[in-house]
């Protein structure tokens, strides 16, 4: 899947070399292997399917079978530099708690998800009155694993509520390479098929709190962004 590849490329770009990375929902370990080979990271994975874990072991990766909702609690606090959650947030039972867990376990989190605010999604609902099926949302509603879909705007709101710092956001659409965006822009929320957030804990070493509210909080205030 080329969209997945682009997602991985961008995550790879965001992660600093020679760091400790936990990939949650690592599948068959493609991203972990890329990060190990190209960025010399010390990687660990969490994957729900036994066959996925077996495939990871063949790649020489250290992967634990488990579920993001249940098993993140097993990882010690601050054990990693990055926690990566690629295209998985929308499939967990408690996205808010998972997000908090990511930033407990790791200094930074890289979270990517399909944007339900993308114009095709909105159009499918507005014009067709049907649940959308797009490149980043390919499964029909009755089979999808996605139980907590959100828009870029929704996710920004959640980060604000949790006091999480948004360090960078990239958007992907039409299979093109990711480009950096202002996540608080109304137009970007229309254009992005999926988004990748680089997040960090709010409390910095000097104890200060970054101001997340530079841009208007509500997407509706930014109609012409």
């Amino acid at each position, binding site marked *: 899947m080329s969209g997945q590849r682009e997602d991985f490329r961008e995550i790879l770009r965001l992660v600093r070399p020679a760091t400790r990375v936990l990939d949650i929902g690592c599948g068959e370990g493609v991203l972990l292997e890329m990060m190990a080979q190209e960025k010399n990271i010390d990687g*660990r994975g969490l994957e729900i399917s*036994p*066959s996925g*874990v*077996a*495939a*990871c*072991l*063949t*790649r*020489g*990766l*250290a*992967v*634990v*079978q*488990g579920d993001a909702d249940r*098993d993140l609690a*097993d*990882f*010690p606090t601050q*054990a990693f530099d990055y926690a990566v959650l690629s295209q998985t947030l929308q499939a967990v039972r408690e996205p808010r708690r998972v997000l908090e867990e990511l930033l407990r376990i790791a200094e930074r989190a890289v979270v990517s998800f399909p944007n339900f605010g993308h114009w095709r999604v909105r159009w499918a609902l507005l014009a067709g009155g049907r649940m959308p099926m797009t490149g980043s949302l390919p499964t029909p509603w009755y089979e999808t694993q996605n139980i907590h879909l959100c828009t870029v705007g929704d996710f920004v709101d959640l980060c604000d509520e949790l006091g999480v710092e948004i360090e960078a956001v990239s958007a992907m659409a039409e299979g093109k390479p990711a480009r950096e965006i202002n996540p608080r822009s109304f137009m970007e929320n229309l254009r992005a098929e999926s988004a990748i957030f680089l997040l960090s804990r709010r409390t910095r070493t000097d104890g200060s709190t970054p101001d997340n509210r530079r841009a208007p909080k509500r997407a509706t205030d930014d109609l012409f962004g």
Partner: protein
Amino acid sequence: MGDRRAGVDTDAASRSNALMAEPGSLIDTVESGGGVMRFAQTLPLRLEGGGQLVGLDVAYKTYGTLNEDRSNAVLVCHALTGDQYVASPHPTTAKPGWWTQLIGPGRPLDPSRHFIICTNVIGGCMGSTGPSSINPATGQPWGLTFPVITIGDMVRAQVMLMDQLGIASLFAVVGGSMGGMQVLQWAIEYPDRVFSAICIASAPRHTAQNIAFNEVGRQAIMADPDWRGGDYARLGTRPEKGLAVARMAAHITYLSEAALQRKFGRELKKDGVSWGFDADFQIESYLRHQGASFVDRFDANSYLYITRALDYFDLAASHGGVLGEAFRKARNVRFCVLSFTSDWLYPTTESRDIVRALNAAGARASFVEIESDKGHDAFLLHEPIMEAALGGFLSSAAKARGLES
């Protein structure tokens, strides 16, 4: 045995290539070796419970060849009633080795690439020093005068064997059930001698339920009048009834309800019930057979001693009650932990405790829970995901160790 070094009694029968042909098994093509390593009196085994065993015997089998770098050695650790015949026919029962699913040409442990060693644990009855051995001080079988041993003692005896074989570092230590406990013990006590550790269907401690089942087995043995306070060997009797009952109870814990139901259900042996206490049901007849055949190859006192060692096993206890602390020294060991969904003897929660502790210690841990309805014994059976996971884990570890390009 006054010499300083240990001597080896080679087991001529098992050394020969005339292994029994096993239909469908490739293992008969594998060169095997081993024998009994007899340690000089100057090399006693110090025991965790105090005291020491002098003139120790460790029986073992090997498969494959140790490479020039001595870097391809794999130690396989057996379970409660297992033995060193991991991949060759059992001398008493003539049954194939107990782990030929994993050991053989093209299998995860391959004698053409690995030098595989399997020892009989101390306390056992297949050639290593145990309660049925002769106490050199009295010239009589030890019986209950044999010291209580631990999983740690079993591992230390294996370490002594590795020293004699000139193996400073093992490529892998592998085991299921009690074998998995030995694997964990190895990793914690000898992290510099273990490159990778595979722990299957095991636990970091015995739970109350585990101890309870073991106690039922021990009481069955001790209730047998032929047990004679453990002195049966000297008095010429055999507590076969008690040992068979112990095996029957334990055997239930190795299976799952689903497996029993599928295999036996309420099937009768003959048409209609006997209105008595014969083995009417297939399951009764199966268990009786399991009990009866077990006594041919196992010693009752060994059963007491080894179950005791299991009950005393608690990895965290010796590290301030914190399992993560226990693994702190083993951070550089590559771990692979496997469990089975229907194993209720050492359920997945136990393996998850191990994995959680490994993560807390920052160790390199992999874990898979394998879907199977075959219960605890699944680790001895053909489980494709287990074989794929182990194959993948071992080949990537081999690359990291420079055994494969």
